[in-house]
């Protein structure tokens, strides 16, 4: 079966809030999921990501907009007519049915011959590593095993798309890492287009071909994990994905290949600049803590500050450095055994031009 794309066109969902009145859970979201791609909707709780996913599944109806799967408008189709596989946060296994019957359920609904059902269930249980579990009841399984059954149940009907609603959030940390690898492997092996919802940025970065970051009902940016991390388009994305420093700055000069800036009275420059910057404009700079170089003495360039805290975490050391009114976080991987700056000492922060991103929103 050829993988199909999913297209959302101006999809909105409103609901009645007890205090605020009518509010948008999802506001005019447009999105293209390419055939065979695993796209993650990432955002804090209440950002509308689960509502968006449930509208794709057909569990909720959009108040406006259209949803297309494989070019077919499914907006008015019920969930049972969309041919989707859905994996729930709480697994939602049928507690009264055995593992085998849980997985067979969708095939029985399709009234497939008994022999085909038995073969398909056996195959898919093997695929998720649960051979011989068919006779067990769901409450006899561990969380990870239940999640595999849920996965097997969703893929056995050969759905056109697979939808995941925070499927790993009930598992412990180690299992989470293992299962996300398996989900990715299965999705690629089956070549099914998938939409994955999570609030865990590390999980999103590990599993996704592409991430759409949502906040307050809208998609604020989408791209690969690397693009989002290296070139966040807004303060929200910069802060939601990874740790970051946001520095108030002023544009000093603009040329085609570089922007000159001033931070705390010190010069800084970068080759990466959004268009239409003007000299004198107030901007914010995104600088990741691990890109900043910490030098124990004042070397004339860069920013100067005082170390206020130093936390040793094994593979890295985290510093907080007071620079003027700002506190800048610096992460030092592969720390040296000796000569590390201590709290109270004056240091120089070297900011590589390539690591600086300029956000046009001025400081509030």
């Amino acid at each position, binding site marked *: 079966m050829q993988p199909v794309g999913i297209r959302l066109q101006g999809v909105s969902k409103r609901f009645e809030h007890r205090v605020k009145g009518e509010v948008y859970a999802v506001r005019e979201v447009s999105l293209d999921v390419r055939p065979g791609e695993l796209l993650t909707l990432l955002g804090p709780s209440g950002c509308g990501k689960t509502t968006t996913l449930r509208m794709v*599944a*057909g*569990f909720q*109806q*959009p*108040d406006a907009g259209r949803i297309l799967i494989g070019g077919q408008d499914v907006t*008015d189709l*019920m*969930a*049972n*007519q*969309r*041919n*989707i*596989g*859905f994996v*729930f*946060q*709480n697994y*939602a*296994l*049928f*507690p*009264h049915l055995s593992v085998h019957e849980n997985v067979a*359920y*969708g095939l029985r*609904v*399709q009234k497939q011959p008994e022999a085909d059902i038995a073969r398909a269930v056996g195959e898919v249980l093997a695929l998720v590593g649960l051979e011989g579990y068919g006779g067990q*009841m*769901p*409450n*006899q399984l561990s969380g990870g095993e239940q999640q595999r059954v*849920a996965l097997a*149940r*969703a893929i056995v*009907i050969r759905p056109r798309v697979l*939808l995941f609603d925070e499927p790993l959030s009930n598992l412990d940390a180690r299992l989470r890492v293992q299962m996300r690898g398996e989900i990715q492997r299965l999705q690629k092996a089956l070549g099914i287009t998938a939409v994955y919802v999570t609030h865990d940025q590390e999980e999103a970065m590990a599993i996704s071909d592409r991430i759409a970051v949502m906040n307050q009902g809208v998609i604020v940016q989408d791209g690969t994990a690397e693009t989002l991390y290296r070139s966040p388009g807004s303060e929200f994305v910069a802060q939601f994905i990874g740790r970051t420093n946001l520095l108030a700055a002023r544009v000093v000069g603009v040329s085609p290949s570089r922007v000159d800036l001033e931070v705390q009275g010190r010069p800084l420059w970068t080759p990466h600049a959004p268009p239409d910057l003007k000299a004198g404009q107030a901007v914010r700079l995104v600088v990741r803590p691990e890109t900043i170089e910490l030098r124990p003495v004042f070397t004339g360039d860069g920013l100067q500050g005082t170390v206020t805290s130093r936390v040793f975490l094994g593979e890295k050391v985290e510093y907080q450095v007071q620079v003027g009114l700002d506190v800048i976080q610096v992460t030092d991987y592969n720390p040296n055994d000796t000569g590390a700056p201590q709290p109270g000492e004056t240091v120089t922060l070297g900011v590589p031009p390539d690591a600086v991103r300029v956000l046009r929103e001025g400081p509030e």
Partner: protein
Amino acid sequence: MTAARRIARDPALLLTALGLWVLLGLFVLFPLTRLLQRAFVEDGRFTLGNVLATLGDSNHRRAFVNSLLLAALVGLCGTALGLLFAYTAARGGLGRRWLAALDAVALLPLISPPFTTAITMIFSFGPRGLISYHLLGLKGFTAYGLHTTLFAETLTYFPLAYLTLRPVLAGIDPSVEDMAFSLGGSRWRVFRTVTLPLAVPGFANAFLLLFAASLADFATPLILAGNSFPVLPTQAYLQITGLLDFKGGAVLSFVLLVPAAAVYLLQRYWVGRRSYVTVTGKAGPASQIRSVAPWARAALIAGCALVALVIAYLYSLLVYASAVVAFGANHAWTWRHYHVIFTEGLKAIEDTLIIAGAGMPLGGLYGVLVGYLVARTAVPGRQAMEMVSMINYALPGTIVGIAYLIAFNDPPIELTGTALIIIACYVFRYSPTGIRATVALLQQIDPSIEEASRSLGARSGTTFRRVTLPLIMPAFFAGLGVVFIRSMTAISATIFLVSINWTLITVRILENMTELSLGPAAAFSVLVVAIVFAMILAVSAALRRFRAPGTVAVTSVLGG
């Protein structure tokens, strides 16, 4: 997406809802409307004349006052007795087995035919009563009136108070009491100033439940109240069966309906929602300090034991009376009464079993369907459906019976004399237990389980049949069990609906009582208790068998 469009795509749901509304309209709203019409409409015009005339009749006025007085006294005494049991269960430090015994004693009166206590009161205190005549040698002690009615109703209905108060008292965190102790309060002071005030909503709830139960009780006063103490349900009954005065019966029903409805609404929407208990989070460890002094604990247990003894005595008496020639006169053993009920009385037994057997699956299914629509779907008017489905349950049986009699006596819908009218009466009167059990169970089942079924391609009908229904099977069996049990034991509504073609054991018991053939009455009662017990065992077994692994248990077969 409008609700109408959504429903149009799911016609099975819409048809089910429409079907249920037709049934509710026919068997709940229509009879009630006809009853009010009979009471208030004269020559096509609205009038208060009938009600005023009834209230002007001193006999009826006395019945009204008596009803309220009896209900209030039963409410007080029953709540006190319920508190005794509940406090002993919650704080008495009894072992598991003793608690089970306490429960058994409290449940026995709830599942018995309504006049079991009344009959044994006659055996004990009647003209040739075991206690009044044989033991105390009293002559001229009257077994009829407020005192015996009150005693019998208190014993019959105090389990309602026990079942209401026990979770309330158990829910009061013992650490709150510990705290009061640590501040220097004496045990009595802590009980008075902490425990009791925390349980106040529970008391109000228990009192109102008992008040309503007593107000609606028909069988006990019919046997025990006598001519000197008329109450509304019996008065309405006599008005209809004695004088064939349907209008008078309708008006008396309305007079009874007003306090009954007021109490029901008060209980359900005001007191029922007030509880201090749910405020606390995690319960602390069991109290290290005994909140009950040793002597008080002994007194509590003695009190419970006394009540248990009285109940045990009454039931032994019933069995004994069914197996002797003539209780009070000739105490020779005999099977005669059982022979009588299985020959002359066989038709009543067969009819009752057929009616209960037919009502059982219908009531179970109806409860599950309404519960599902109310708890899980977006069908318009589902709140209204829930309220309407509770009406016949909340109203005193006498009112429901008279309403059915008035509504279904003439065309267009003539059902008088059929089994259907009795079955419909039971189904719509006693299924609300099943509805509530279904709603409670569904609230514990995550909706995503049904969504999973839909995402796998199942339509709503398939999802209901293959996923939801198996999961709410326990509620189905609980609902079905209650309909069966009540069909075996109820009389207040159906006494107006029996006919030559279809009669009931409970009605035969009443006839036997009035003919003073007490032996067969006792034998019938024993038979009913035995059948009900067998049914409870069967339902409990079914609940264990059908309880899906990992889901919550439905324990209370008799939750109302």
